[in-house]
């Protein structure tokens, strides 16, 4: 009663050759984009692509902080939030993107920070209510199964872990991890959206022979759809990296983040190049 072939344990091993190949692909994509772009818009196109790659890396890296427990967490058997990691991160990041898109006219820096705060606020409220339910609804204190003492508060964990479980709830380090994850994911998603929006606002009027106000709905929709699509691709890649569950930044699985940064960078560059080619070719 097992899966088709015994899959060799993914483990935390880094694969330097593959990461090197990944970085080479990344450089090829950036270079190709630079050369295909018409001469006078090369710097703008390059900055847009760098912004998209940075946004993707922020998302990929940020999702590692979010504490996700999966199915065991729903039974109080494991710490973390009882939802899938890709979609929980998407929920937080998209709430951030909502706020960041609203602040788009106030400048890139303000909008990206607003997006980050939106994501962080959503995760803060969610994590607080999770602890609320565990403590007041189920009578279960928070405890981690991976460390003896909470790295931030120094609280000891072992005696608050019920028998037969790996821990439950959200110890303070997991809460902080969740907020940081929401901040980074919201900021990353907003950055991708803003980069694409600026590019489309600048190039679609000439491409479609219309004024900027007329094509604004198209630009917003396309930039928003691309942001959502890249968001999901990056968070699913991170979910593959941590194999589904992670307790937060104190979890040993957190050390796998370099792999994810390379993978997210390449995936975002690829998707970014395609998104840019729509208006540049």
């Amino acid at each position, binding site marked *: *009663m*097992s*899966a*088709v*072939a015994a*899959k*060799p344990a*993914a*483990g935390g*091993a*880094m*694969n330097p*050759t*593959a*990461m090197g*190949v*990944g970085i080479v*692909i990344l450089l090829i994509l950036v270079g190709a984009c630079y050369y295909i772009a018409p001469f006078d818009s090369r710097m703008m196109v390059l900055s847009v692509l760098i912004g998209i790659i940075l946004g993707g890396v922020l998302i990929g890296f940020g999702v590692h902080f979010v504490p996700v427990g999966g*199915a065991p967490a729903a039974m109080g058997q494991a710490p973390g939030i009882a939802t*899938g*990691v*890709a*979609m929980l991160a998407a929920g937080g990041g998209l709430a951030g993107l909502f706020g960041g898109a609203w602040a788009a006219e106030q400048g890139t820096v303000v909008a990206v920070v607003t997006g980050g705060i939106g994501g962080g606020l959503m995760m803060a409220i969610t994590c607080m209510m999770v602890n609320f339910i565990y403590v007041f609804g189920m009578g279960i204190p928070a405890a981690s199964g991976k460390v003896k003492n909470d790295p931030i508060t120094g609280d000891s964990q072992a005696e608050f872990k019920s028998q037969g479980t790996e821990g439950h709830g959200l110890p303070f380090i997991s809460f902080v991890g969740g907020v940081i994850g929401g901040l980074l994911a919201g900021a990353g998603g907003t950055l991708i959206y803003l980069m694409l929006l600026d590019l489309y606002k600048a190039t679609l009027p000439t491409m*479609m022979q*219309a004024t900027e106000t*007329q*094509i604004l*709905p*198209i630009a*917003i*929709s*396309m930039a*928003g*759809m*691309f942001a*959502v*699509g*890249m*968001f*999901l*691709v990056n968070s*699913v*890649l991170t*979910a*593959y*990296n941590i*194999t*589904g569950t992670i307790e937060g930044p104190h979890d040993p699985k957190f050390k796998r983040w370099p*792999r*994810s940064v390379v*993978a997210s960078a*390449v*995936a975002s560059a*690829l*998707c970014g190049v*395609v*998104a840019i*080619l*729509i208006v540049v*070719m």
Partner: protein
Amino acid sequence: MTVKVEVVEGGVPHTTIMAAGLIVSLICLYLSYLNVITGKEWFSFFGGLAVVAALIWGSHTIKVLCSYGIGTGVPSAGMISFGSGVIAMLLATKFGLAAPIVALVLAAVIGLILGYLSNEVLNMKIPAMVQSLTELAVVGAFTLMGFAVMIGGGFTFATLTTGSITILGLSLPSYQASFLGGCLIAVAFLLGAIAIQHPFNACLGPGWTQDRMLMLTAECGFLSMIMAAVMSFALVPAGAALISLIIGIIGWAYSYTKYFELSKRDAAAWLDAKPIPDVEGH
């Protein structure tokens, strides 16, 4: 403890389903080009049929991929399929008549790179990963293109970004009342992403049978077609939307009843208002 995923051998081989899905979907997308040739929009329903064909192929790919126990569950595969597919599809719409072929090639390249990243950089080392992610990206692109054809009337960038609004009886061109302007592509994205992973997710278990899962895929595809047809009333002429709606309803009713029959055939027992049967020791 999680759900144990089991693989049952037999049934139609995956390569046959892949080839059939790919060819039928491409043909249906090109048949919808009759819209442009005849100047009417009655052939938009071919987009919906392309969606059903692509989804049948895609759900079988998900079955192949997730049988290896990737550790994060089935819905993520659907999300990454459409996340990469939407990007390929939007660029492909710029190429006029060649759009479906360009979508195929571009999505395959994106899927290939994502598969390489997952297997080598993220160290997942699953035998079917690269091929499966390539196929899933193509399925995502075709499904979205099929929805675009059905709701918008064509698969070129111009068709998808222009629409018209009626003010005081006058018809004015507007970019906002279009498939891309109103972001109906988001609806298509989620309709497809849930429909592609639902059949395998819902038929998961030791008693998985291929014909039941594929019939469920057809049902999900036709259900999505009904909803897309309702949305297309805003963008294509009422007659064309009505044709899509009727075909969708007929297809859905047929596949839904067949699915009930197949489930009755496969279930341990089909009880109505009976108590829980006694099992030894519990």
